[in-house]
């Protein structure tokens, strides 16, 4: 369901899909430079390092690297399905059926 939320908030779906590509190589280099900069001054008490967003992203990429491939919409996590038989939900999809109500 997190996916729906993400899509709802992001206005530009092109950017969501092709984001990394449109920016091209230029920004990638600057990002790397940022990385090295951050590592110096983000130390807390000289012992811990703050996790920067780019590091987080790298970590995410690493995690995705060896995922199993699956073409389903809910690929690997179990979907939490809504109980469509409940009246409130039923109203949402009833009009996708030929038996649904028409305004005309």
């Amino acid at each position, binding site marked *: 369901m997190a996916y729906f939320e993400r899509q709802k908030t992001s206005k530009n*779906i092109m950017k969501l899909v092709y984001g990394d590509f449109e920016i091209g190589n230029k920004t990638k280099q600057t990002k790397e430079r940022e990385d090295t900069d951050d590592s110096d001054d983000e130390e807390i008490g000289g012992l811990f390092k703050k996790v920067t967003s780019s590091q987080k992203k790298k970590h995410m990429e690493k995690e995705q690297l060896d995922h199993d491939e699956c073409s389903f919409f809910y690929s690997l996590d179990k979907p939490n399905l809504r109980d469509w038989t409940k009246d409130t939900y039923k109203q949402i999809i009833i009009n996708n059926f030929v038996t649904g109500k028409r305004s005309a």
Partner: protein
Amino acid sequence: MPAILHNDVLLYKGSNLFRQRLLLSTLSGRAIKIEEIRSTHDDPGLREYEVNLIRLLDKITNGSRVELSETGTSLYFQPGILVGGQINHSCCTQRGIGYYLEVLLALGPFCKEPLNAVLQGVTHHDLDVSVDKIKSAALPILLKFILVDDGLELKVVRRGAPPLGGGEIVFKCPVRRHLRPLQWSKWGLVKRIRGVVYALRVSPTMANRVVETAKGVMLNFLPDVYINTDQCRGPNAGKSPAFGISLLAETNDKTFYCAESKSVEAGTGDATLPEDLGRECALKLLDEIHRGGAVDSAFQWILALWMALGQKDVSECIVGPLSDYTIKFLQHLKEFFGVMFKLEVLSSDDDEMSSDDEEKTSSAQKVKMTCIGIGYVNISKRTL
């Protein structure tokens, strides 16, 4: 993750999306190199099912070159020419036949000889679309692109469940010189529900119990529900016990949504109640109907592929929210073919259905995909 281009070889990392990459490499004729395949795992390198996929690609192409490193963690693949024809392949039981069949389906129209493939293995698997789903929901999509049905066929000869499999299917696909551009922005309303429940090496009552609950849920929405049972006997039931269901919703504009569920693998300790299974599958189907769009969400990527490979004309299609797999596929399409889709989120429907605000927010988003085909031509197929 975007690829690094090195000497005209696309360089990837990791085993994820292995199938997409090999598929697009074969179609585009571009060599790929994949590195760091499970290099940090206890069991490094390619899995058996992935090697099996390479074997299959080797069978339907001529002149493919595959170089595997000693540890199996890096792979170089230079695709050959698509030949197709008669092939017989025994699929790895770690994945379903669907894993392999989807590749064949995507490549089928571009082969030199019409594809006639016999595949053995697991016909129903948790991670892969089942053969029933491909038959009922994916073949109609291909028909839209080739228009004339001369020998597109998928026959389930035997069913087989994991872990041992034992199923068999026959897939035939005609060849085309090029695909037609497609405009598909209406999908109509669901008019009937069909389904199949199979029971392999379990009591036949299981199937009937599944039917009862699944039908019970669907009857809330539509009276036209008909669910078949397929009681397999003897060798037709494969080698492992299982039961499962696949439900199909057909709209009056020939769009098919399909949902499926199957029992957990025997021997894992858990047991599946047939009643739960039927209900779960029915809810999945309703979820799919709610997402809507012109194609089932599991086949968005194959739709995108065929749209991109069509004639040099505009193709347009409206689908439900994009799945993660499709997003990755679109990125790969850009890398291999340089095709970029125009994607627009359609603002809340002006249909009669969204009369009050509450409904508006809860109706699933639709995405309009538009692209110009690259004019991919099957060089092996001569014009008449």
